[in-house]
């Protein structure tokens, strides 16, 4: 009996902590993490000899728990940028060692002291051509149930995006979005609330649009890219596409910090970023990456649609995350 017990305890303690020549990379799973493994982890292991263990999905609660308990088993984590800003303020992140990670070519929009860009993406308007007659031209059409009947799908969680879409649709100019007028946004959202189907994850958003369960919706551009690549009859409008980013962070007290910094250097390198963008349809955060990519891939990236692009304000969101979340979920539950 004692033996069994000791065995169980030993097993629990070993968990996923990596050895000296290993490190743990955590991301959101699915096609995105597959692309990250192929584009970053495999070349990194080949050149450095450091094995990269994959874990996931990213869970902010778990990250905080690890740091609080001083038992951090994740070395590099892919998180949303507004969370990274907040987490850095709460002391959950290590500073990035820019002596190891070259900073010069990183897009300054998506990097700061505690985070380097992972990739950036745009929320775009996508529709199922079989379920929609005509072409929605922009966010305002998603609120026009007469002209465009049918269910519309939006991102379920409190995050940068939907509030801004409602305000833009209501006529707020792009440069006057912040500070967000929440009352106005929820009032606008109320007008279509019964027609909204929420998507909680990327795969769900694809399924909803591809099946016509939702006629159109607000999707991550990479997910639309994947749908079109699979031959789904899906249209896309880049008008007022809204950029946000995932960033890579190192949790405070990560056991393999040195390996983590080297991994970040590979992940944010022009080559790493170019390969990942090609595989995922998300945009590189290294300004030199585009030179290494085929022209037709570059055409499909958010980078090709900057003239109508709006940057979601990550700093604003990081600061007001909790208060917006509270109102958001209260509104949803009504």
């Amino acid at each position, binding site marked *: 009996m004692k033996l069994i017990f000791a065995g169980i305890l030993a097993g629990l303690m070993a968990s996923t902590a990596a050895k000296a020549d290993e490190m743990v990379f955590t991301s959101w799973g699915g096609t995105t993490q597959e692309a990250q493994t192929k584009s970053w982890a495999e070349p990194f292991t080949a050149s450095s000899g450091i094995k990269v263990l994959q874990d996931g999905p990213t869970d902010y*609660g778990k990250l905080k728990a690890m740091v609080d308990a001083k038992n951090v088993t994740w070395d590099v984590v892919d998180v949303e940028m507004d969370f990274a800003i907040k987490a850095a303020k709460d002391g959950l992140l290590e500073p990035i060692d820019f002596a190891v990670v070259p900073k010069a070519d990183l897009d300054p929009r998506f990097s700061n002291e505690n985070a380097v860009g992972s990739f950036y993406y745009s929320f775009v308007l996508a529709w199922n051509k079989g379920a929609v007659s005509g072409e929605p031209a922009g966010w305002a059409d998603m609120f026009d149930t007469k002209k465009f009947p049918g269910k519309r799908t939006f991102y379920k969680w409190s995050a940068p995006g939907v509030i801004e879409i409602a305000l833009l649709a209501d006529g707020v100019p792009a440069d006057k979005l912040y500070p967000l007028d929440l009352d106005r946004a929820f009032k606008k959202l109320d007008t279509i609330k019964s027609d909204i189907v929420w998507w909680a994850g990327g795969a769900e958003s694809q399924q909803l649009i591809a099946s016509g369960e939702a006629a159109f919706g607000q999707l991550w551009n990479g997910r639309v890219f994947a749908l079109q690549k699979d031959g789904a009859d899906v249209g896309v409008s880049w008008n007022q596409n809204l950029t946000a980013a995932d960033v890579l962070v190192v949790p405070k007290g990560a056991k393999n910090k040195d390996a983590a910094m080297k991994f970040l250097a590979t992940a944010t390198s022009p080559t790493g970023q170019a390969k990942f963008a090609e595989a995922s349809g998300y945009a590189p955060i290294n300004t030199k990456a585009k030179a290494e990519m085929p022209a037709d891939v570059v055409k499909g990236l958010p980078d090709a649609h900057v003239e109508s692009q709006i940057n979601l304000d990550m700093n604003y969101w990081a600061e007001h995350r909790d208060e917006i979340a509270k109102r958001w979920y209260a509104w949803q539950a009504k």
Partner: protein
Amino acid sequence: MSVEAKQGIAPLRIPAGLGGLLPALILIGLFFVVPVLALLLRSVTDPAPGLQNYAALLGDVTYARVFFNTFLVALVVTIVTVLVAFPVAWMLAIMPATLASVLFGIIILSMWTNLLTRTYAWMVLLQRTGVINRTLMGAGIIDQPLPLINNLTGVTIGMVYIMLPFMILPLVGTLRAIDPMTLRAAALCGASPLAAFRRILLPLSLPGIAAGGLMVFVMSLGYFVTPALLGGTSNMMLAEMIAQMIQSLLNWGLGSAAAFILLVVTMALYALQLRLVGVRRSTGGA
């Protein structure tokens, strides 16, 4: 048994053979009691000492709505489960043993299939472009797809399906113990089938209904996956709200308080179940 009953509130004496239970007790202590105490502690210390988390939970309209939703869904699911399970259980109780064991196998098999898979299967069936709506529309029975998903209907269908075995199994046990002759006697005395059901079968099967019903209710209270996938945002249940507080809002104090309230309610219901079933057995048991 009688020895135990006599002991009652007598001082705790370590019964023989407890040594063998020790590993289990340590395991429960380490992995259940300690975390629960930590949870309770956090709910009154995070972010500052005091009862503000409980005050926030109990004083807020949104949270009140989520609590109400949780109990409403659990209640509806329990009632529908009883209504569906009773005829099935009765059929299983009276049919030939070999056939019944095959059907039992099918019911239990469904419990072994992954919960997420089964819930996704319901999504495919229930959605607007799903099998059910397409069939009905193709047959010309309806013009517009029925709203079967992202609402209370979807949650109820999905959860009843998952809960059925937990209701059927205890119910079959109770029904099998009922002497079929009692029904024949009722018929001989001139009772209509309905009267025989209402006055003989139903009262005799109440312990099984109570046991299964409370189990289903308690399990439903803490359900997460099915309501999250088949319900709408206005059907949010407590478990989903707790997950949100812990995972994305990182408001652990509030999440702990909500989890603790759920735990207390569940424990109270469990105590009620023990009492009810115990009492019924001692009075109704022949």
